[in-house]
């Protein structure tokens, strides 16, 4: 299994996820489905993003840059919390996950900005600069773009999740 296959797979998932969530705004069935199962879907996004990130660094030997580490800091706990919450059907974690995903999305956007407009006069470090595009799935989808998509998916799915079985605090 090559890193290219995995990153293409991740990019494909991100594209499908983004279109799926967009559909939830316009298609009644999708809206109802997200409302009922949004937390499970968000948990799947968080866990897949976490596993993919670990694959890239631990198996494919990509060196995470500083911004990658910041995104990991917000993605990993969000993924774990969402998984536990989805299993326990505990909907009260939403504010915590939204906070983590919101900050993570902001970091991702900054990372995308750096890759698009590298700092003038800058140098790249041996360990991998934040401005380098180590992956370009489909020729244009980079790692922070995928991460941003994951954070946005988590935010939308969790924010729109309102299952019938949830208990009020």
């Amino acid at each position, binding site marked *: 299994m090559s890193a*290219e296959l995995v990153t293409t797979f991740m990019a494909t998932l991100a594209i499908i996820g983004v279109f799926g969530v967009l559909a939830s705004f316009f298609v009644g*069935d999708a809206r109802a489905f997200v409302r009922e199962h949004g937390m499970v879907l968000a948990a799947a996004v968080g866990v897949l993003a976490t596993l993919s990130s670990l694959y890239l660094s631990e198996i494919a030997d990509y060196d995470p840059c500083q911004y990658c580490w910041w995104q990991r800091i917000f993605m990993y706990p969000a993924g774990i919390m969402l998984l536990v919450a989805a299993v326990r059907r505990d909907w009260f974690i939403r504010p915590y996950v939204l906070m983590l995903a919101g900050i993570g999305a902001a970091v991702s956007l900054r990372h995308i900005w750096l890759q698009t407009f590298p700092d003038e006069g800058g140098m790249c470090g041996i360990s991998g600069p934040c401005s*380098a595009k180590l992956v370009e799935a489909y020729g244009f989808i980079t790692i922070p773009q995928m991460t941003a998509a994951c954070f946005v998916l988590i935010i939308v799915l969790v924010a729109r999740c309102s299952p019938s079985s949830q208990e009020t605090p």
Partner: protein
Amino acid sequence: MTEQSPHGHAAQAAKTNSWFTSPFVLLAGVILIAAIIAAVVVGGGSDESADDQTATDDTAAVASAADETDDEIAGDESAAVESSANEGEAIDAPETETSSDGISNRGRFGGPSIPETAPVTVDGGALPAFNPSDDPAVGVVAPVVTAMDLASGEPTSLEPGARRMIVFVAHWCPHCRDELPQLTSWLESGALPDDVEVVAVSTSVRAEAENYPPSDWFNAEAWPGEVIVDDDASTALLAYGFEGFPAFIALDENGEVLARTGGNVGVDGFNELASAFS
């Protein structure tokens, strides 16, 4: 009679109207579809896959080529030094053939038997860490680095005896990719004294990163100087006191450091570096 909440209605609607009944079915389907698409996309790009295979072969060939290079370096280091000294001429005319997309592997750098990275030996202590404000390396004798020439595949040694401008670049680094064309144009304008040898060091090579292999990059940019390749640990880069790139160092004929600089210095920076030779 029980009242049903709006959420209850939503759930009911989801159960009755959706073609899927479980999020796990949806997830499994999406993952399966994504996996199939990814396999088709990655497998479908046969040309790219072939290129990747070549790249992988190049990388894999590093080990064997490295052993041979080690033997050559250890066995006859002086021969390597002579070879380097004979290669002498400051800036050779580019013999690059570029295709319509500007990328070609038929230029003078690289080739099927030439790996993109190879072992490096360093004779002498590493220079102090680069400090742009007050560089402690100025006046210090640089270590002698021996590395593989990306054009010939033979080891070459950066021994004292010629004034040199050494440039460290990485193929995936956006700053380096921005800097190399500017530097090439500047060199072709004749801004550097004729007796100054220009050597690029291809460092931090990563087969999985963009703009790989670096030999294609140097060919596409019609790099006019020599290119030597660093090893996986960036030994040459570290020996000259750098931890990043693009990085530049000017050495006099005794191997003493005249100046160092780093980053996207542009033409002004090149001129400043060239002034160190005067």
